[in-house]
């Protein structure tokens, strides 16, 4: 009798486990197992090759990928996750990345402004009145037409949510403020009158925060749980916060047939796991594959879409600390062997450079600016010696005005920034300046309080196709809540103020170049490197292309391979 009870108990445990595991596999949107045939080519033949896909099994993923007609689910693994909150700054990126909502304007592969939900736009002579002509026949995912009124409501809803008076955070207001929005449903246009000239207005409208949603319908649901009602190719069916999204086709999509019935998006923080997921066929698309693995992927027939320059991994230097000393700062900049740090320490995840804006943006003339702090440790030590920053107490470290120096890097671990900081610290120690690294969960507090010598930032430099927002970090009027370096230079301020209101593109570019020149001359921004962002895709899908700005991941153009 007792025995029976115990066995029954064990049996129940085992069966429940099997049952739960089993029926889970059949539930909606979770058929990762189905698209991964059980016999996913156990390529045991390549056990000798450490870097995985030897060319011999290059065809393996293609073999296991079901035929185009049979592939109905797109599997994506990524290192990022946010909630589908279109009215929050960085989560809004996610909404557009997942293909849930779209913007009036979009960035092209050359970072130019391209039509999307708006077909064209123009600004009146007052430099304030912008008119956007809307695409015909666009529908929201609930079937409602995207009329001019809906667009107006969408923007108004954003500003209502963002208004500090309503407890909002006010991010949208830093992009632009308006005096009026009018919708003309007959002409299908929306006219926005801004309070002051906004030279990058199309870029603002391309920023994900300004994606168009059905305000009325979205108000009626819990956006944080269900996502907004947008015009994108996919809609959220469910999600587990911090882990995965299950998306389904938007039946009302306006721009052609949506290629996949469902999308399974999973956050996988481990770099090696994302790479493995691509190789074993459980993912069609993976973001951020470590640079050292890319050659092997490419030779195995995977597509690698790599973009460099849109994002800087850099450090703000604190001008109110010892780094305010010009000689010390210059010497520290010269101590950094950026080529080695980028190519070896980060394994090529970053590209070395010294201008705040990558030289690939030729319009801002980075290539014409000479590198006054190129790697030269001997010269750095000479500068320190000449400035009297010497080791006088024999402890092996130099002192500044008789005071011991200990430079502190404050950094988070994300995007290998802690690795870069540690490499920097080593190089700085090599010129006799003591330096330490403090790894933190979040650097915000340190930035605002100024309790750092170098603090890491990893930032999109042209979020609206224009660097003005990024450059305002060093504008003295920005205050320590944004000008973390506590930098102040009247020349910079003057040029920056001119940039802010200038509408003429070539003159704007000239100002930007001027600002870059000042920053390089003053050694203001300690660059770790330009981040190389990549999206890799298996031969099972086509059309995965990464434009310089990483706002578009899952698009209507990603299709099953023929």
């Amino acid at each position, binding site marked *: 009798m007792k025995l029976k009870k115990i066995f029954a108990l064990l049996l129940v445990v085992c069966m429940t486990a099997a049952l739960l595991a089993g029926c889970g596999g059949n539930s909606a949107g979770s058929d990762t197992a189905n698209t991964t045939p059980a016999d996913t080519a156990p390529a045991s033949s390549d056990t000798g090759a450490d870097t995985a896909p030897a060319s011999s099994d290059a065809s393996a993923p293609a073999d296991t990928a079901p035929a185009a007609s049979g592939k109905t689910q797109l599997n994506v693994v990524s290192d990022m996750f946010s909630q589908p909150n279109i009215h929050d700054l960085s989560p809004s990126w996610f909404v557009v990345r997942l293909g849930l909502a779209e913007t009036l304007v979009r960035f092209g592969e050359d970072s130019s402004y391209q039509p999307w939900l708006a077909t064209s736009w123009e600004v009146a002579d007052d430099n304030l009145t912008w008119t956007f002509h809307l695409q015909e026949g666009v529908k929201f995912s609930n079937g409602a037409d995207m009329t001019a009124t809906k667009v107006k409501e969408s923007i108004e809803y954003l500003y209502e949510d963002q208004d500090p008076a309503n407890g909002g955070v006010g991010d949208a207001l830093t992009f632009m403020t308006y005096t009026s929005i009018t919708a003309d449903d007959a002409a299908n246009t929306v006219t926005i009158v801004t309070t002051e000239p906004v030279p990058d207005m199309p870029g603002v409208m391309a920023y994900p925060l300004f994606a168009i949603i059905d305000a009325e319908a979205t108000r009626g649901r819990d956006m944080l749980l269900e996502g907004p009602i947008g015009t994108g190719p996919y809609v959220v069916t469910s999600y587990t916060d911090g882990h995965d999204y299950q998306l389904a086709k938007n039946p009302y999509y306006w721009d052609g047939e949506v290629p996949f019935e469902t999308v399974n998006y999973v956050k996988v923080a481990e770099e*090696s796991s994302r*790479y493995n997921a691509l190789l074993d066929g459980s993912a069609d698309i993976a973001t951020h594959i*470590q640079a050292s*693995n890319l050659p092997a992927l490419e030779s195995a027939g995977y597509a690698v879409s790599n973009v460099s320059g849109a994002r800087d991994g850099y450090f703000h230097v604190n001008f109110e600390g010892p780094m305010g000393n010009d000689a010390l700062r210059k010497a520290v900049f010269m101590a950094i062997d950026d080529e080695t740090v980028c190519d070896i*320490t980060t394994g090529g995840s970053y590209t070395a450079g010294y201008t705040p804006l990558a030289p690939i943006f030729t319009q801002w003339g980075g290539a014409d600016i000479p590198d006054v702090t190129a790697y030269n440790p001997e010269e750095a030590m000479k500068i320190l010696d000449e400035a009297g920053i010497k080791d006088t107490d024999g402890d092996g470290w130099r002192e500044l005005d008789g005071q011991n120096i200990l430079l502190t890097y404050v950094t988070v671990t994300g995007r290998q920034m802690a690795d870069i900081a540690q*490499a920097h610290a080593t190089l700085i120690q090599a010129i006799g300046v003591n330096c330490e690294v*403090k*790894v933190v969960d979040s650097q915000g507090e340190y930035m605002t309080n100024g309790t750092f010598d170098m603090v890491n930032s990893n930032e999109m430099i042209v979020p609206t196709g224009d660097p003005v927002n990024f450059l305002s970090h060093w504008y003295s009027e920005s205050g320590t809540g944004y000008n973390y370096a506590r930098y102040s230079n009247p020349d910079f301020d003057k040029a920056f103020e001119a940039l802010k209101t200038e509408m003429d593109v070539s003159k704007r570019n000239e100002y930007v170049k001027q600002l870059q020149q000042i920053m390089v001359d003053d050694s203001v921004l300690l660059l770790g490197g330009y981040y190389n962002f990549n999206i890799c895709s298996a031969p099972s899908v086509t059309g995965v292309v990464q434009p310089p700005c990483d706002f578009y991941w899952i698009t209507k153009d990603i299709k099953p391979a023929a």
Partner: protein
Amino acid sequence: MTMKKLGTFCKAHKAVTVYAILVLLIVLVAVFAKVIAPYSPTEASLRDAFQPPSAAHKFGTDFMGRDLFSRIIYGTRASLSSALILVAAAMVIGGLLGIIAGFAGGVVDAVIMRVCDTMLSFPDLILAIAIAGILGPSFVNAIIAILAVSWTKYARLARSMVLKIKQRDYIAAARTTGSRARHILFTYMVPNALPTLLTTAVLDIGTTILGISGLSFLGFGIQPPTPEWGYMLSEGRSYMQTYPWLMIFPGLAIFITVVAFNLLGDSVRDVLDPGKARKHKKKKRKLNKA
């Protein structure tokens, strides 16, 4: 203890001797890290990063071009010292509180035991993670976090031992003859509880090393560039494909150390708890006869 006595002890308890020597070796590695390690653990040579194991670098180099072998040798210090400090602290704090609870009884007992129950109602590392996370990532905080959970085991143990001997005649005699509480505590209670507490402590060292390295692995422990095994393993895991030695060797170091301490713990228990061992032997005889 004279040499002769030591010799006799070693002969009588071969297992303990062998494992103690093993552990001693590990301790010596920590003490003489400077002599054993060919390089400084923090000396980086960026251009020599990610070198596979070779004659110059037995275990290869990490992303900063630091010698992995030297870092692992020095890492012994962090792991051993923290585990020993932690276990000792847990034993002293927990043991004393347990003895006091058992001896005093009443409200004191109830309060201490309820606190114990509270701590024991958290499985695994979850409370330690919360504490370490809230206090901020640092090695000391990680130790405090684990200590907050681990003392309870000793408290319960010590209390039960005290309760067992509390009613014995000699304690009662001491009480009636007017011995002071402190005297009774330290003359009878502490020495009585000590062997069991010590055995538990030795058995606990391995688990503690695992716990600390686990917290470090999650990023709630030590700050770089101090070499610590759990953190090194965590640094190495993203290079699993291309540079597998970065995760293999630190893990091996943890594993070997834990094995050594567990072996010692098991054998010490057999020695200090001879009653149990004898009972087993008797049973075996009985079985054989049957």
